[in-house]
């Protein structure tokens, strides 16, 4: 039946143009590219023709789970979406986006490790996948529906327990930041993969399965998971925001797991919130940046209140728009344009972010491309080009590639990392293809958080353990030893997107439970497991691979280099592109850190740091491209050969 533990063994290939489905063997990729984002990168390298546009028939929507998806490994029920992203600027390019929820695990229970969607359907279509079978179904009754009603329809049709990913009106109208939505608040947001679905006239994928994910070392996985979950539970009980009892009784608010096998309850599900803009009852999950729609000081200069905030957040999800792009990019940019008198109104509607009704109008205009919404549907950078206004404000909000700021200490107000923590964020931004913080929060987020309660002395000691030197964390050495943590965080990011695991939980480094605040867990049968070894141990327990820690880490490096190779082959990526993020970081930071004053990036120091980064990666510091020997050493000899004289 199944030859490899952790896998169902097959990837479904769906050609929408010809209405043909076929099967590909997962084992072709599994051992070398981990899973998820890693396997998707290899498929993209092999299949995506040069110069493909996000809306082209040839573009692929590559949906991949990992070996841990569907197992009891903590927070592993995730799934990654890859392909040419329409949101990328100035040109759509290959990148990734991931979501939690329960679609990924259900896909595996249905017998598939992933789906490659190619072609374009002639008429609106949805896929119905159940136990080793895929069917093309007409979606004429679904096209035009919002994401909640699309899912309700499909669950009613295919039965309880059916999991759905779909696109909303925003995706149908090719809004460049349309999301792939599942449930009320799980979404692959960045990149605009909802618009890729829209362009392919693929309204939804519904899946239901009854199969099992085989596990190599069942007992070991159980013990590891139980131990990690106990640790998470302690941390959660200590620190996380609990639901306000008033909200529980008034709006039936409940904390719920946001993905299969997650022991946290980060999201709050509201059962019945009265609608302010639209009469009726709002029922939705709220998590991550969704509460920001409510606004309120000190972070936001709008305040629409809790209930309308929940309603606007739900409306955004129903339309299938990306929360993050709105709250951290487009809306602050519109606010700045309005403040500077560059934009008076929205097709006659006064711009007023204090008004829930204005938000609803704005979102509707964008999702349906009405009036000015047609320009705003192109996202900030392209809207700025088309309207010819607000370039300065735009540059202060969008670091690069068409994505808004994210955990980098600059941009709009809710961006908490301070100097020198964001120096590492800057390195991550410089060498990525999107905002790196879908799975790269680790360094910036952990240190910002833990430095409130743990001394820099102790944090630096953990830094030495993780990155090789105290300087990696010590604020006294802001531009020293920062390439190492950046690379380490990028590799962690690859692992989290590939295994997959949740970025809010892993890597699990810091705790209040030990003397030195570093995580060490006593796992029955395995002994003391260090925080930085947990991903490896989970991978080994599920797959049973005979792989050393070093080989496991090298897989992450292989994937990162392969993604760079795609950038080089398709877009001529070079050092000059990487340096494009510098101006954003040269503006003053948002919050004051240990230095006691508002800092900004020192260009000369950063260029030196970039040299160090390239050298450590085995990349040519002049071009920012991997050296041939490096790719060969990583087992990417065929990739090096194809790149020919693009690399040295």
């Amino acid at each position: 039946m199944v030859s490899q533990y952790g896998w169902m063994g097959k990837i479904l290939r769906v050609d929408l143009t010809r209405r043909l489905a076929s099967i590909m063997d997962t084992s072709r990729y599994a051992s070398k590219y981990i899973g998820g984002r890693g396997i998707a990168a290899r498929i993209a390298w092999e299949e995506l023709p040069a110069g493909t546009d996000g809306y082209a028939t040839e573009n692929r929507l590559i949906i991949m789970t990992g070996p841990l998806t569907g197992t009891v490994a903590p927070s592993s029920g995730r799934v990654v979406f890859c392909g040419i992203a329409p949101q990328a600027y100035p040109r759509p390019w290959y990148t990734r986006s991931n979501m939690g929820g329960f679609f990924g695990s259900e896909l595996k229970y249905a017998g598939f490790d992933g789906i490659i969607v190619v072609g374009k359907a002639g008429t609106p279509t949805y896929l119905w996948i159940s136990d080793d079978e895929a069917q093309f179904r007409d979606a004429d009754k679904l096209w035009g529906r919002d994401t909640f009603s699309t899912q309700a329809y499909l669950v009613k049709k295919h039965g309880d327990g059916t999991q759905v990913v779909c696109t909303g009106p925003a995706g149908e109208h090719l809004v460049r930041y349309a999301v792939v939505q599942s449930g009320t608040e799980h979404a692959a947001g960045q990149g605009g993969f909802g618009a890729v679905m829209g362009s392919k006239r693929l309204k939804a994928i519904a899946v239901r399965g009854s199969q099992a994910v085989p596990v190599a070392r069942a007992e070991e996985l159980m013990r590891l998971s139980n131990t990690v979950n106990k640790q998470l539970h302690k941390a959660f009980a200590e620190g996380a925001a609990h639901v306000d009892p008033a909200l529980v009784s008034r709006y039936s608010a409940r904390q719920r797991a946001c993905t299969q096998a997650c022991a946290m309850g980060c999201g709050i599900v509201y059962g019945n919130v009265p609608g302010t803009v639209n009469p009726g009852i709002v029922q939705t999950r709220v998590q991550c940046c969704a509460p920001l729609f409510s606004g309120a000081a000190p972070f936001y200069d709008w305040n629409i209140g809790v209930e309308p905030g929940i309603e606007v957040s739900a409306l955004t999800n129903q339309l299938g728009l990306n929360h993050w792009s709105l709250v951290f990019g487009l809306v602050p940019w519109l606010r700045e344009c309005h403040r500077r008198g560059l934009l008076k109104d929205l097709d006659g509607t006064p711009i007023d972010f204090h008004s829930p009704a204005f938000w609803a109008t704005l979102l509707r205009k964008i999702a349906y491309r009405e009036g000015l919404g047609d320009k705003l549907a192109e996202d900030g950078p392209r809207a700025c080009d088309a309207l010819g206004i607000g370039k300065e404000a735009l540059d202060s909000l969008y670091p690069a590639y068409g994505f808004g700021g994210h955990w980098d200490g600059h941009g709009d107000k809710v961006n908490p990392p301070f100097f020198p923590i964001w120096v590492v964020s800057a390195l991550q931004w410089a060498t990525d293809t999107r905002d790196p913080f879908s799975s790269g929060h680790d360094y910036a987020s952990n240190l910002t958080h833990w430095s409130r309660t743990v001394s820099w002395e102790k944090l630096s000691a953990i830094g030495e353990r993780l990155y090789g030197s105290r300087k990696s964390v010590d604020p006294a050495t802001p531009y020293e030893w920062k390439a190492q943590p950046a690379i380490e965080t990028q590799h962690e990011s690859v692992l989290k997107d590939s295994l997959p695991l949740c970025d809010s939980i892993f890597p699990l480094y810091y705790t209040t439970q030990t003397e030195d605040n570093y995580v060490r867990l006593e796992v029955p049968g395995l002994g003391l497991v260090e925080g930085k070894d947990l991903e490896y141990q989970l991978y080994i327990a599920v797959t049973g691979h005979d792989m050393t820690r070093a080989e496991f880490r090298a897989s992450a490096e292989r994937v990162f280099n392969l993604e760079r190779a795609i950038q080089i082959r398709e877009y001529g990526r070079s050092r000059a592109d990487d340096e494009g993020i510098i101006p954003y970081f040269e503006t003053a930071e948002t919050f004051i850190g240990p230095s006691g004053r508002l800092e900004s990036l020192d260009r000369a120091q950063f260029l030196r740091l970039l040299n160090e980064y390239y050298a450590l990666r085995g990349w040519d510091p002049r071009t920012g491209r991997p050296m041939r020997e490096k790719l060969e050493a990583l087992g990417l000899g065929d990739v090096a050969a194809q790149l020919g004289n693009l690399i040295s």
Partner: protein
Amino acid sequence: MAAFSAPAKSGFVLPDVDRCRGCAICALACSLQHEGACSPQLARLYVQRSLLTEEPRLAMCLQCDWPSCYFACPVEAIIIDEKTGARVILQDSCTGCAICAKACAANTRGEIIRFNPASGKYFKCDLCLGRVEGPACVEACPWGALRYVSAVQR
């Protein structure tokens, strides 16, 4: 077949749906324990979240004092575990006739005595038989939503 007198009382796992967060860790731990693989459909307990409301629903065998399944089985494939009192379907003896599944009044949805299409047999909660740490689901639930009640306590 034994006379129709009540068998020894059993312990059971008591679910508290108010504490449940819908993570399905219990079901995955259960199938891992029994099948060496992770699958909610092969779990001896049932957990289901509604996709949009996210309300979880839990169902599991309460190991009745008067177990209709036990009495109904025509081939005596259901036995009483000596240690816990659990009503256990012996997989080797089960013929897949479904009589136990129909006899159970709580099993109208087929979520308590479940069918494994691969083996053609029925299965249900066996309280993990001799597992030293007790039932795997109780140990794994991070929220204390599952509690083991012993035969003496019930």
